[in-house]
């Protein structure tokens, strides 16, 4: 009985990885391999993406949105897997700060992801089975390199802007460093030029939780129609705490009990916060592939922009003509303001044009995804200013 229940689940996950719903897909054949930092090439591979708005005749109004660790291409429309609104609908859409009536917005699932871009859940054409741990380790630079190939394919030479938070922000910084002439404006939010030891440590706890689940089966769970649900859920629960803040958790849950007046003197989810975390964990495993989680956390761990530029981030941005707007949040302890300030120092030292705003909020790292009017005003103002400099038509009066 259990076998029958699990079987369609695993194949559905595999299907989403190769044939994503509600997405555009570009496939790169043997003539266009993806050169990876790990020293190998990936070929063939595919990228799943979504677009919103219209590319203008000058082809200069394209905005690339880079998603975070567990995000996807469904930035401003209903996610076909979760049936929930797009993950950044507060920011991207008609009349929103990243206005789809003005900009041509592109968002691609990252390489290594599980919603249509080639990753460990995709079928390895050489074996006819999911890649699993045979999938090569990828880096933020690999992810960005693949995105650049997608833009080549779409005939977009220069992006008006690249924007993203967290791991998305890392991609923004990598874009500005790797392809300075292709990026007119860059919006790295709540991110860093390198993943800190503390953040690597948190990721390692999450990975160990996944790998400790017997259902992980050395990464071959898809072949066996299994799923390391418990391990991945624990990884998500741990990570989720790092996306919030002490103050936000206290405001939201305090020490309130869940559907009961007294403690049960057991290990039930007595507290609301426990119940909330369990829900976060269990809903996450329905939409995310465990191996993708391993690969993408690894990609973030390896990110250190200074490494590629003789140990100095300033070198990465030397002479850059890109306009930057760096944003951080006061209660973000995963990517604290000091990380953003280091980006700003490097940009200043490189002579780049940079704005930097720190937003007061108790919502922690996740603030970039939430209702933060000050963030919206800043993004809107920054893009308006950059749009004037770029000669884009102003937003229609609303």
């Amino acid at each position, binding site marked *: 009985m259990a076998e029958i229940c699990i079987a369609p689940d695993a194949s559905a996950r595999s299907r989403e990885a190769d044939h994503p719903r509600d997405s555009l897909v570009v496939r790169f054949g043997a003539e266009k391999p993806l050169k990876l930092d790990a020293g190998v090439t990936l070929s063939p591979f595919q990228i799943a993406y979504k677009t919103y708005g219209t590319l203008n005749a000058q082809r200069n109004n394209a905005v690339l949105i880079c998603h975070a660790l567990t995000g996807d291409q469904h930035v401003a429309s209903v996610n076909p897997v979760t049936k929930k609104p797009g993950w950044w609908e507060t920011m991207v859409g008609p009349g929103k700060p990243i206005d789809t009536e003005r900009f041509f917005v592109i968002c691609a699932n990252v390489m290594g992801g599980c919603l249509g871009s080639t990753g460990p859940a995709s079928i390895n054409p050489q074996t006819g089975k999911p890649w699993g741990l045979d999938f090569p380790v990828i880096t933020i630079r690999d992810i960005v390199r693949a995105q650049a190939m997608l833009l080549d394919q779409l005939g977009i030479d220069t992006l008006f802007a690249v924007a993203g938070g967290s791991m998305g922000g890392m991609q923004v910084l990598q874009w500005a460093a790797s392809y300075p002439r292709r990026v007119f404006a860059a919006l790295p939010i709540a991110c860093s030029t390198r993943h800190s030891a503390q953040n690597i440590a948190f990721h390692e706890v999450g990975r160990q939780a996944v790998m400790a689940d017997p259902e992980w089966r050395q990464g071959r769970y898809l072949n066996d129609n299994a799923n390391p649900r418990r391990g991945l859920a624990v990884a998500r629960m741990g990570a989720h705490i790092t996306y919030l803040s002490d103050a936000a958790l206290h405001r939201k849950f305090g020490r309130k009990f869940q559907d009961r007046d007294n403690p049960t003197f057991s290990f039930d989810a007595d507290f609301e916060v426990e119940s909330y975390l369990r829900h976060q964990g269990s809903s996450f495993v329905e939409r995310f592939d465990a191996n993708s989680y391993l690969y993408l956390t690894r990609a973030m761990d390896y990110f250190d922009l200074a490494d590629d530029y003789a140990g100095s981030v300033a070198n990465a941005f030397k002479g850059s003509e890109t306009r930057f707007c760096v944003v951080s949040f006061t209660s973000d302890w995963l990517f604290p303001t000091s990380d953003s300030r280091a980006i700003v120092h490097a940009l200043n030292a490189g*002579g780049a*044009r940079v*704005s*930097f*705003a720190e937003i007061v909020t108790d919502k922690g790292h996740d603030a970039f995804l939430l209702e933060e009017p*000050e963030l919206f*005003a*800043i993004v809107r*103002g920054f893009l308006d200013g950059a749009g004037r400099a770029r000669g884009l038509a102003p937003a229609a009066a609303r």
Partner: protein
Amino acid sequence: MLSRVKQDLTMAEAARTPGGSRVDLLLIADMVAPGAKVLDVGCGDGELLRLLGERRGVDGRGIELSREGVNEGVTKGLAVIQGDADTDLADYPNDAFDYVILSQTLQATRHPRAVLEHMLRIGRHAIVSFPNFGHWRIRLQVALGGHMPQTDNLPYAWWDSPNIHFCTIKDFRQLCFVSGAKMDKAVALNAWGSPLRLNAPWWFWNLFGEQAVFLLSRR
């Protein structure tokens, strides 16, 4: 600097042209060559940067201590970062700008000399404007009133003032001398925002100038 935004609002009532721009800011704008690369240290809500962009077509950047000021500036599309003149100027490379401007902020810095020296290092020119503590009304308040002065330009009580390093025009000239700054141009404004006679002696400026604007370069 913490309260530049607040202070700007007060000064807004003091001296504006019929067009609505602050006289001291227009004076600074006149000193800046068109198209120059400019850093405004303590840029408040970005009014001077906006003015410089409109009138002189400069490539402007700003540093501001107050979070409200920064976010307001960025919202206007200006390149403004949150930072502190006393600590963050050291991060800028030599000759990064044509002009580094310190408008109504000198008196709020902890180390005015270090700030001025950094300005001259980062920029080929430095422009400094400040309230003149040698103005006769201030002297009168201290000498006869026997209390710390409060004026339209300097509205704070002594205990909550962000201004910790007041100086007179005479004092500032001495700072220029010890910091290796060459005075290329100097203007003093009276209480109504009009420039004082150019050929007036320094003591006259020091007594009747309510604020002063200096254009400096390296000696």
